[in-house]
C-alpha cells in the first residue's frame, strides 16, 4: 500500500469573481521512502495541493472532491481533533520562509522541545535533549548553544535547518517541503538539498528520475532554462499565459499554449496514462 495516495482531489476557492479551481482532479501516490517532486509555475496549484493534504486550506478554499489516504485511512473523514494528531506527528511540512513559520518569541530549542512534548509527552528535560539532538542531526553547528537562540539570531540557512529539525522531531512518515530552498542562496540551497537527500537516503529508496520528459508542458518548461549547450542562443519560451482558473473550458488546460495541440485537445481533457513504466502523461499526442 502506498504511504500516501491522493485520488481525484479538487480544491476550489469561491470568490466574488467566480469559483477558482486551484486543484482540479489531481491523483498521485507516494511510496514509503520515496521522493515525489511537484513542479509548475506560480498559481499552478502546488501549494494548495500540499495544504489540502494537511487539510490547512485557508477559507474560502474548500476541498470539494477526492480522497487523501494516509496508510489507507482517508484524511478527509477525520474530525478536527483526529486531524490535529496527524499533522506534525505523521505528516510534517517545511515552508519557503522559515521566519514566518517559527515563533519569534521562543528559542528554537523550546519550539522543537514543545513539538516533542505535544506529540510524545515525557519529561521537559528529555524533550530539550531531543531538540539539541535534532539540531545536531540537521548539522547545525554547536547545537547546544544554537538551541538557546531566537529565530532572528540565526541566518537564513540555519533557520531553515531549525525548521527541518522542528518538522522531523515528532518522527513524521511524510515530509512535505514547499519551496524549501527558494529563499536561500545557491550554496546554502545546495547544503539544504544535500541534507534533505541524506535524511531521506537513511530510510532509503532511490528517486526515479525521468531521463526524458514527455508532456509538451514539461518539455517547454525545461527548454525555458538556460542550458550550457545553448548559452547565448535565444531561449524557447511557452507562449501565452496560464489559463484563468475561473474558466470552465473543456479540454486540456495547456491546449491554448501547446505547440502540438490538435482539435480533440480542445474538446476532451486527456487523462493520465502510463506511457512508459511508471511514467504517466496526460497527453494523447506526446511523442513517446
Amino acid at each position, binding site marked *: 500500500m502506498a504511504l500516501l495516495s491522493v485520488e481525484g482531489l479538487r480544491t476550489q476557492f469561491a470568490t466574488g469573481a467566480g469559483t477558482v479551481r486551484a486543484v482540479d482532479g489531481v491523483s498521485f501516490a507516494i511510496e514509503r521512502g520515496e521522493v515525489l517532486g511537484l513542479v509548475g509555475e506560480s498559481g499552478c496549484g502546488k501549494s494548495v495541493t500540499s495544504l489540502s493534504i494537511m487539510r490547512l486550506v485557508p477559507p474560502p478554499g474548500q476541498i470539494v472532491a477526492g480522497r487523501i489516504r494516509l496508510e489507507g485511512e482517508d484524511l478527509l473523514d477525520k474530525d478536527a481533533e483526529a486531524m490535529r494528531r496527524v499533522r506534525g506527528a505523521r505528516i510534517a511540512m517545511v515552508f519557503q520562509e522559515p521566519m514566518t513559520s517559527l515563533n519569534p518569541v521562543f528559542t528554537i530549542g523550546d519550539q522543537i522541545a514543545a513539538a516533542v512534548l505535544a506529540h510524545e509527552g515525557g519529561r521537559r528535560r528529555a524533550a530539550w535533549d531531543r531538540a539539541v539532538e535534532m539540531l545536531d542531526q540537521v548539522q547545525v553547528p554547536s547545537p547546544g548553544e544554537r538551541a538557546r537562540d531566537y529565530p532572528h539570531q540565526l541566518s537564513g540557512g540555519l533557520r531553515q535547518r531549525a525548521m527541518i529539525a522542528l518538522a522531523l522531531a515528532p518522527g513524521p512518515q511524510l515530509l512535505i517541503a514547499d519551496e524549501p530552498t527558494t529563499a536561500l542562496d*545557491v*550554496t546554502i*540551497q545546495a547544503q539544504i538539498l544535500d541534507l534533505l537527500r541524506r535524511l531521506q537516503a537513511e530510510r532509503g529508496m532511490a528517486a526515479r528520475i525521468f531521463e526524458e520528459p514527455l508532456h509538451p508542458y514539461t518539455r517547454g518548461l525545461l527548454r525555458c532554462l538556460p542550458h550550457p549547450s545553448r*548559452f547565448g542562443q535565444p531561449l524557447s519560451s511557452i507562449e501565452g499565459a496560464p489559463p484563468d482558473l475561473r474558466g470552465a473550458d473543456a479540454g486540456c488546460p495547456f491546449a491554448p499554449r501547446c505547440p502540438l495541440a490538435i482539435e480533440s485537445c480542445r474538446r476532451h481533457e486527456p487523462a493520465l496514462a502510463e506511457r512508459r513504466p511508471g511514467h504517466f502523461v496526460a497527453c494523447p499526442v506526446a511523442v513517446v
Partner: protein
Amino acid sequence: MAPLVEVQGLEKRFSVGGAWLRGRRRVIHAVDGVSFAIEPGEVLGLVGESGCGKTTTGRLILRLIEPSAGRIRFEGHDLMALSPPRLWATRQRMQIVFQDPFASLNPRMRVGSIIAEPLAIYERAGATERRRQVSELLDVVGLDPAFAERYPHELSGGQRQRIGIAAALALRPSLIVADEPVSALDVSVQAQVLNLLMDLRRRFGLTYLFISHDLHVVLHMSDRVAVMYLGEIVEIGPRDALYRAPRHPYTQVLLSAAPVADPKLRRERIVPKGEVASPLAVPSGCRFHPRCPLVFDRCRVERPLLRTVGGGHEAACHLNEAPALLTGA
C-alpha cells in the same frame, strides 16, 4: 576602442549600529576595491550571493549612491569629477532596470506616463511626440500600444518588467544596468524577458552590466562574467573560459551548486562549508578561506590578488601558482 565603462578601486563603506547612547558604530565594506571595464556593446555579467556587493556595485556606477573611494569613467568622462549639470546630462546615457517591477513602477501613474516621464524630465519632446514615442517603445518591448492607458496593477509580472525596460530605453542610453531583471519571474516569462534583452542589445547596440544571483542566467546572457564574494571580484573572464575552466574555488563551488535541469549533465558536486561570513567580520587573508574546500595555511594570512590566468581571464586564488592543485588534475 576605449571602454564604455571603466571602474578602478571602487569602494563603498556603510556604517551601521551605534544605537542611541550605546553601541558602537561599525563599518561594512559592501564593495571593497572593485575594478573592471566594459567595452561598448559588451555584456558583463556580475554574479554572487546575497550581500556580496553586486547590487551596490551597479548603483555606484550610476552614482545612485556615492562611492567611498575609486574612479568611474563612462564614455570617457570621469563621473566623480563631473559638475552636477554635466552629470545630469550624462545620466541620460546610463539607465537601470530593477528586479521588482511591482515596486519600481508608480502604481498611480498610467503606463504611458511612466514611459514618457524620462522624456518629459529631459524635455526631449512635446506631448504629441512623447505619445508617439511611447507607442513606439511599447512596440519595441513587444506590447500593444493600448497598454499606455493601463495601470501597473492591471499587468502581469512579465508585462511590468517590459514596461520597466521600455522606460529605461526611452532616452536611448548606451549602458543599461540590469539588476536581477528576471529573478521575480516564472521560468517561461523569464525566458521571454531574457530573449527581449538580447534582442534589444543587438537592435540598439546596447551595453549591459547584467547582475544576477543565478549563475546560469548570467552565463547565458554575458560575454564576460565577474564573480563577486564579500565585496571583491574573485574571478573575471570570458564566459566560456570561466564556465569550462573556472580558476577560483568559489566559482567552482557556484557552478557545482547551481542545479542544471538535465540529468545527463552532472557535475561533481562540491558543497562549500558553512555560510558567507558577515561583512562586519571579514575573514583574514582570502575572504573565502573559511568555506574553501582547497584551503591551505597561506590562505588564512595572505590576501590573494587578481592575477591573469589566461586570455582576459583573472582569478584571485593562491593555487593558480600551481594550477594542477586547483583543477584537481
